[in-house]
């Protein structure tokens, strides 16, 4: 069992390096990339079964015991995020191998390294190691964001790169401050040291906690650090934008992990405990305004990602079992559905010729029924209408809030849903009904191009059917996160 824990890192790393050697053999490279990504699925399922029993998997790298060496830690939250990444990556890659991966040379290399960074960020139990994995996933994402080329992509990427370099500098300052104040960087050990910190280092720790919130908020696109997202996601190649749906969730994961373990909201992280909920609701509102104002389908979906980040962080910002559990149920739903919508927008744009996914009167689509049904499904799921999983997630969130905060949260979450519904129905009617002229010459999309988008959106149906076991799992996860002593005991007591 023990060594399976590192497989989600080894598999994409080896596949990425081998793909680099196979640049001259694109067919083989493609097969290797798909095979390795598909291999992640059984591995992460196995890890989920292991973590689902409530046990912790601790993997000391180099066999150094916990506070001295770097450890990988598997708990329920990590296992959930790993499985989500594997499902998303496989479906996105199946879309990409229809031709998008040939628009740049190193797509598969970057894709695998991006998976390495994402999985590493979820698995690591060391703050500096988290920084390193963040950098790996960022470097790969810089390359992927430019995939396909073009002026708009270059401009959006330049902003993204500069912002994230500043973010990395802040991350290092926060890590350095924490190390100076607490003398350790292992997350479990930090939790112990921060809780027992003398009053003279309290100010340094507060500064570090808030700096980390800024860094993770930049990754998660928390207001006011969300402005890079719509341009980048709206212009990236479809499979890249779909994969990036998980990137904001890495930031959300880091916030959830840090402020339940290292700086619990009722202890050292009380500033964050106060700030997170209002910031999340403001993010939601800003995203909703963007959704209404967007004039292209992909930009609209990008703003929906901002809205979903606001919803997730609002759930986490409640810092109770109900709120975190609701956020964790909503997280896979929103990731998969927004990725599916990005792929669907690409299919739609291909059949509209030069009009792309702009909301202008264009030619009728070649396959209006299939695309229309998928769009309807995606819109219902994304707007949070019953019966699909978006509705269940939002309902859980509304139930979890305490009466004192209910007025604000209910108003903003429900208005956000209504705005999403209006914008999506307007987008759908423009694209599918307000058409003029002849059908575009661009022919029918083959089934292999349809399936990934359809399967991603169908995940919402699956999550609705499996809601009871899924909610049991997320509730257990939330309870585990809010009792960090188990995590600390598992890591610091682990014998190599």
């Amino acid at each position, binding site marked *: 069992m023990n060594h399976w824990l590192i497989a989600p890192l080894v598999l994409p790393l080896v596949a990425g390096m081998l793909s680099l050697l196979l640049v001259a053999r694109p067919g083989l490279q493609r097969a290797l990339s798909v095979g390795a990504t598909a291999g992640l699925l059984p591995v992460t399922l196995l890890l989920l079964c292991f973590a689902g029993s409530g046990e912790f998997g601790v993997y000391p790298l180099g066999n150094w015991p916990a506070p001295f060496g770097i450890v990988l830690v598997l708990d329920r939250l990590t296992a959930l995020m790993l499985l989500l990444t594997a499902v998303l990556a496989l479906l996105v890659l199946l879309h990409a191998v229809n031709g998008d991966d040939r628009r740049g040379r190193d797509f598969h290399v970057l894709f695998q390294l991006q998976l390495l960074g994402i999985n590493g960020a979820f698995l690591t139990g060391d703050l500096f190691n988290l920084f390193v994995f963040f950098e790996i996933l960022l470097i790969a994402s810089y390359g992927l964001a430019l995939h396909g080329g073009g002026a708009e992509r*270059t401009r959006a990427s330049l902003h993204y790169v500069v912002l994230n370099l500043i973010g990395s500098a802040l991350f290092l300052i926060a890590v350095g401050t924490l190390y100076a104040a607490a003398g350790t960087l292992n997350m479990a050990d930090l939790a112990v040291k921060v809780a027992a910190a003398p009053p003279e280092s309290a100010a340094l720790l507060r500064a570090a906690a808030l700096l980390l919130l800024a860094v993770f908020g930049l990754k998660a696109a928390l207001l006011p650090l969300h402005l890079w997202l719509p341009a980048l996601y709206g212009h990236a190649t479809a499979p890249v934008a779909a994969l990036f749906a998980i990137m904001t969730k890495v930031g959300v994961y880091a916030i959830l992990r840090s402020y339940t373990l290292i700086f619990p909201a009722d202890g050292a992280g009380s500033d964050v405990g106060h700030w997170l909920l209002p910031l999340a609701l403001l993010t939601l509102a800003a995203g909703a305004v963007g959704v209404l104002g967007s004039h292209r389908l992909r930009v609209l979906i990008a703003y929906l990602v901002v809205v979903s980040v606001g919803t997730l962080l609002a759930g986490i910002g409640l810092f109770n079992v109900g709120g975190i559990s609701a956020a964790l149920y909503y997280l896979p739903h929103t990731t998969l559905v927004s990725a599916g919508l990005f792929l669907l927008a690409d299919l739609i744009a291909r059949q509209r010729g030069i009009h792309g996914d702009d909301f202008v009167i264009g030619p009728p689509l070649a396959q209006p029924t299939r695309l229309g049904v998928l769009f309807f499904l995606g819109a219902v799921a994304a707007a949070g209408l019953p019966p699909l999983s978006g509705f269940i997630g939002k309902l859980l969130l509304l139930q979890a809030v305490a009466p004192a905060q209910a007025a604000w949260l209910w108003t903003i979450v429900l208005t956000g849903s209504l705005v999403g519904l209006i914008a999506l129905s307007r987008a759908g009617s423009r694209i599918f009904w307000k058409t003029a002229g002849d059908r575009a010459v661009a022919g029918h999309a083959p089934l292999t191009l349809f399936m990934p988008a359809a399967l991603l959106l169908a995940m919402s149906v699956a999550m609705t059917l499996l809601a009871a076991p899924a909610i049991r799992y997320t509730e257990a996860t939330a309870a585990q996160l809010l009792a960090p002593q188990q995590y600390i005991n598992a890591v610091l007591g682990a014998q190599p």
Partner: protein
Amino acid sequence: MEAVAALTLAVLVTCGVYLVLRARTYPVVLGLSLLSYAVNLFLFFTGRLVTGAPPLAGAATPTADPLPQALVLTAIVIGFGMTAFVVILALRARGELGNDHVDGKGDGQ
């Protein structure tokens, strides 16, 4: 020594932030490099400023902390790679957008 260290950091960060806020890409890249120098120095200082002390805890006091140096090495490598990447990206943006403004809009537009 602490005052000199703090002043060095302050000057580096101030210049870095000023340059990062410029409108053209070359000053922004320079600003990012200055910021990363400041961060590297900062990480180095987190082990406290001691001279001529052994890097191991034990009998002798005071001791020097070897861990920040390992952290700095990692940070330098990553910062170096990132700077190289952002230089190339800025050059490409110059080529594709036709000017070197960060927002891609030249003087006349």
